[in-house]
């Protein structure tokens, strides 16, 4: 039996259409004008014990909502969900004992207390014995040097330090499954690397099932074998991360800032690209914000360096940046049939 079984899962929210201004706020009191938001819309998947899943999608895709249902916080509108054989919301307290959760934007540590005190309280809440506790803290100390933070008040930790502590806390009671909802958001590269080491280590040594939500493809690439892509509440892709990598690993986005930019520059750019690199060049161009143009390049077809030198020589370029493909782009490409 799979550890997590989800079948035709739906979560719909009724959202009041709010009117503007003071009078509007008053009218809203009597309003029956609701919109239905299909946050999770017919999702199905099974997850085996010990898997490490990348659950990804752009903002508002429905990732957190799915996690809140798997942890028993939200009740599904319809559909079935079983974790370790039980519906999570039916017996929240028993289920909580086998789960660990990190919500990236919130902390489960005691804000006003030194770090170590939170761990001690959690130790008693989850009834962890002293030896397991010592081993666990020892491991984290080895991996990320946690000990030097013990005496520090949680409110004074940096975002990265706090997140490491939160992750330590979520694994403390040796749960069967850990949900990590955006644990790397806002972190710099070095902290991200530490985080990945820890997560990988725990998955391998303890066989903990891990479900990782992120909109950083790098996290998924580094950690997961299986990836589930979700957008607008629907699963777009569920399969081997290699398949996605093969496709998107080749893509890069070149961001260029051009002096005296206007509509005609964009048109000229697009036109000259086609002239120079041909029609099937794997390049797409869009203006994202004022003066900044995104040129997404499939390196399998046209080398990035060629595009870069072409743009640099033909346009009055002010600034250039190269970024990995964004989640929004991935989703767009999946819609366009890239993975089918």
């Amino acid at each position: 039996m799979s550890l997590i079984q989800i079948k035709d899962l739906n979560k719909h929210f009724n959202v009041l259409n709010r009117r503007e201004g003071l009078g509007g706020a008053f009218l809203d009191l009597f309003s029956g004008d609701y919109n239905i938001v299909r946050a999770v819309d017919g999702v199905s998947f099974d997850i085996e014990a010990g898997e490490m899943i990348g659950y990804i999608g752009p903002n508002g895709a429905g990732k957190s909502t799915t996690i809140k249902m798997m942890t028993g916080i939200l009740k599904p509108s319809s559909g079935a969900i079983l974790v370790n054989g039980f519906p999570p919301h039916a017996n929240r307290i028993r289920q909580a004992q086998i789960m660990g959760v990190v919500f990236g934007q919130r902390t489960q540590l005691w804000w006003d207390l030194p770090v170590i005190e939170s761990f001690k309280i959690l130790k008693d809440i989850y009834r962890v014995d002293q030896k397991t506790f010592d081993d666990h803290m020892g491991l984290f100390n080895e991996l990320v040097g946690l000990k030097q933070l013990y005496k520090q008040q949680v409110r004074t930790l940096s975002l990265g330090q706090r997140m490491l502590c939160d992750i330590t806390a979520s694994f403390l009671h040796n749960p069967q499954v850990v949900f990590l909802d955006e644990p790397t958001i806002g972190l710099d590269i070095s902290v991200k690397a530490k985080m990945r080491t820890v997560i990988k280590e725990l998955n391998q040594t303890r066989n903990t099932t891990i479900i990782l939500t992120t909109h950083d493809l790098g996290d998924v690439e580094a950690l997961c074998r299986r990836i589930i892509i979700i957008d607008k509440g629907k699963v777009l892709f569920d399969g081997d991360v290699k398949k996605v990598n093969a496709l998107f690993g080749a893509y890069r986005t070149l961001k260029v800032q051009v002096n005296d930019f206007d509509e005609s520059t964009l048109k000229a750019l697009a036109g000259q690209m086609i002239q120079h690199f041909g029609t099937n060049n794997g390049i797409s161009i869009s203006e994202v914000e004022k003066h900044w143009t995104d040129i997404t390049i499939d390196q399998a077809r046209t080398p990035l360096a060629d595009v870069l030198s072409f743009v640099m020589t033909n346009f009055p370029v002010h600034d250039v940046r190269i970024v990995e493909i964004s989640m929004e782009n991935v989703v767009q490409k999946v819609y366009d049939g890239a993975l089918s």
Partner: protein
Amino acid sequence: MKKYFAIIRGAFMVGMVYRLGFIFTILGNLVYLGVAYYLWTSIYETTNVMRGLTFNEAFLYIALGSAVFILLKTYSDWWISREIIDGNIIIDLIKPIDYQLMTLFTNLGFVLTNLIAITIPTALMLVLVFNVTIPYGAGTLLFPFSLIMAFVISYCFDYFTGLLAFYTESTWGLSITKDTIILVFSGALVPLQFFPEGMQKVLMVLPFQTMYHTPLMLFTRPDQPWEALAGMLLVQCGWALGLILLTRLFYLQAIKVLRISGG
């Protein structure tokens, strides 16, 4: 039960972090007691006994009332409603603990901080500065137990007010209203004996008086007959139990708002 002890301990430590604020509470209380002292002295200018209370009894009642008020003031209605509104309640809901017991014991931790940092110093000042005589009797022994019941009842009102945040985004007015009702109807501000007789009858069947009037009367009039003392305690325990159950049912209803519409 170890997990709930850990929660008390944690809350106690959090309370201690804010110990600087206690000094102001103690000073404020001293000023209040000074004003109350002169007020009640002038009320008792022409008579020794009023409504069956001597000056010493009345002032002890008032002073102790303010000490108990500060003891029970943990602002739990505020932080419960805040964590509901900003969504941090989900952090509590992913833990294997009962929400009502968790908030109850967190509150107990704060009460213990208040006890050590505010109530005991205030009580000492009462004896030293205002020179009140403290009576002893069977009621004195029952007082601590009665105080614990008063704590449970007070917590239930806070918990209920906090949970209303599931239904409305501004609990500010509700909290203030609750505080005012309790302050007046419980006999915390003025002993119930000083209310009109008809009103006294009504107030005695409401739960508010069990929060202040009951423990304070046990303390200021400890030599009442056993039946009277036991009767008061029994009523208090009844309310404590009833309110715990009622708020528990209310929680089960209110949490549906979160479960279904995401808070």
